């Protein structure tokens, strides 16, 4: 089972939302690593095997969209999903695979993550 468990790197500068999001994802069956800044996230991504990065967009310092771009330069195939309190796509969000509104709630978030991971898996199996 561990073999198939996907590892999600969860990034947010705020403690409570980060913990709760981690618990929701764990409940959905994912293994979760957390980071409270884009910088920490980059370090973890460099040293761990990560299947997907789920990051808040608006963070002090490096934003989620900037983090996505940096992650993609190292590993273009690593899927990055951004979460935001806004439901407008920021102009520089093109580097992320998906942009999610926080308003839509946990069920929607889990469903979207599942579909991103399965499409990645589908691509891999084609190659």
């Amino acid at each position, binding site marked *: 089972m561990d073999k198939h468990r996907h590892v999600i790197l969860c990034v947010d500068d705020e403690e409570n939302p980060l913990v709760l999001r981690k618990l929701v994802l764990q409940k959905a069956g994912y293994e979760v690593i957390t980071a409270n800044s884009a910088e920490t996230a980059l370090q973890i991504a460099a040293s761990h095997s990560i299947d997907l990065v789920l990051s808040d967009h608006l963070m002090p310092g490096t934003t989620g969209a900037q983090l996505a771009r940096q992650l993609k330069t190292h590993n273009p195939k690593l899927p990055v999903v951004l979460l935001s*309190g806004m439901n407008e*796509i920021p*102009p520089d969000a093109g580097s992320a695979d998906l942009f999610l509104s926080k*308003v839509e709630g946990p069920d929607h978030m889990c469903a979207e993550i599942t579909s991103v991971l399965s499409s990645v898996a589908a691509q891999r199996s084609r190659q």
Partner: protein
Amino acid sequence: MSVHEPVNILMVDDQPGKLLSYEAILSPLGETLLKASSGREALDHLLKKDIAVVLMDVSMPDIDGFQLADMIREHPRFEQTAIIFISAVHLTDVDRMKGYQRGAVDYISVPVIPELLRAKVNVFAELYRKTRQLERLNRELEQRVAERTEELRESESQFRSLANSIPQLAWMADPDGHVFWFNQRWYDYTGTLFDEIKGKASASLVHPDHAEDVLRKYERSIITGEPWEDTFPLRDKEGNYRWFLSRALPIRDTSGSIVRWFGTNTDITERKQAEEAVVKSEKLAAMGRLAGIIAHEINNPLEAISNAFYLLRDHPSLDREALYYCKLADEELRRVAHITKQALSFYRESQQLVPVALQEVLESVIELQSRRLQLNRVALEKKVETRGMVQGFPVELKQVFLNLIGNAVQAMPEGGVLRVRLISSRDRVNGRHGVRVSVIDTGVGIRPEHAKRIFEPFFSTKEAKGTGLGLWISKAIIQKYEGTICFRSMRLKDRNATCFSVFIPGAGAESKLGKGTTAILVA
């Protein structure tokens, strides 16, 4: 006037020698000397010429001096003519009296003292000349007064026709500020009579909320002589108020004192309304921005709470009652999410406009509503005549039609027909090209008492189900596109028909296709 104009002096005597001697005595005066040897001859001269002085012998054959004097006096033309009698015979006081009674100014006895006669005649000649000059001056003056009066009358009538032709209301007041004249437009607008509004009574036409202030400022101008300017509503003949910009200028004479005030009132209602509309739309935009910022700030903790309830939802340690509470709280949380979602899409970061096909927007909205349409047994009739290309933001346009179509479906819980039309159209007011979307339902209709309020924020007829933001936000969005949104609700024989019509200007949007940015779909 100082030029010496010779006057006529008539000498009457039946003795030619005497006439010659008088002529010799008087010629140094430089006047015109006329001779007559009889009363008749004298009358001939008098009829032809103006005579200043008549010097005459009393005793003459035919008509004597007294008779001649009577004749002269009868004629008004000779009122100014001085008569001097010369007589060697009649020298009694009675004779003198007789002479004076006939209007003689002097009575000289013979022998005549040349210097005396010359001096006397000179006095009367001068008097006559001066009187004549004075009369002429008087006539000239009268003439000038008449001319000026005519000029004034003309300029007054010109002024009045001018004052009646201007689009403003106009009036004149005396230096104390009492109005004594109004132009025709004033009467046409106010429907008043002069007696009702003369003086300062026209202040009663000022809107009561402004009257005191207006009068105070007006009085201050009257006292200081400073031009008056104020803006306030004035009542028309139907009792409605329109906004006027009112001004009065003091008219001063050459010495600088005020002789009258000239005032005008210019209707600025439309300008005022335009200004108010701008302020209102700015307020709306500011409110939208604020709503967006607040919604955004709420969304972060909202997500955390939603996640917490998600975790609690089937937590093994909770009993049924606790789970029920969690469910209620979670449902209410969904409502909060719905409100912030509505408010947030309204607010947007500045971003480039992209070409949007309203046809596609409508299709996706109808797709989203398809289940509800089926559940409510609502039949759908689509009429699409254009792709409906406009420059805009897909998310917010989708929100507008999601609101309108969602409302229409909700208005038909017992089933009905939903008609969605997309056509090329023109703005009903300014004729601009654009696209019109009509959403028509056969549902419960809009009650007349709600009609005025349905675009207000937090106004909802759906009780707990609605946020009251849908139409308010939709209107704000459409106004941002310089478009219009309006509705009509009709009660027909067996059913209602409610039509929401949205016009978005967008001529030539097709040609701009392909310029847009690529965007990833937002959930």
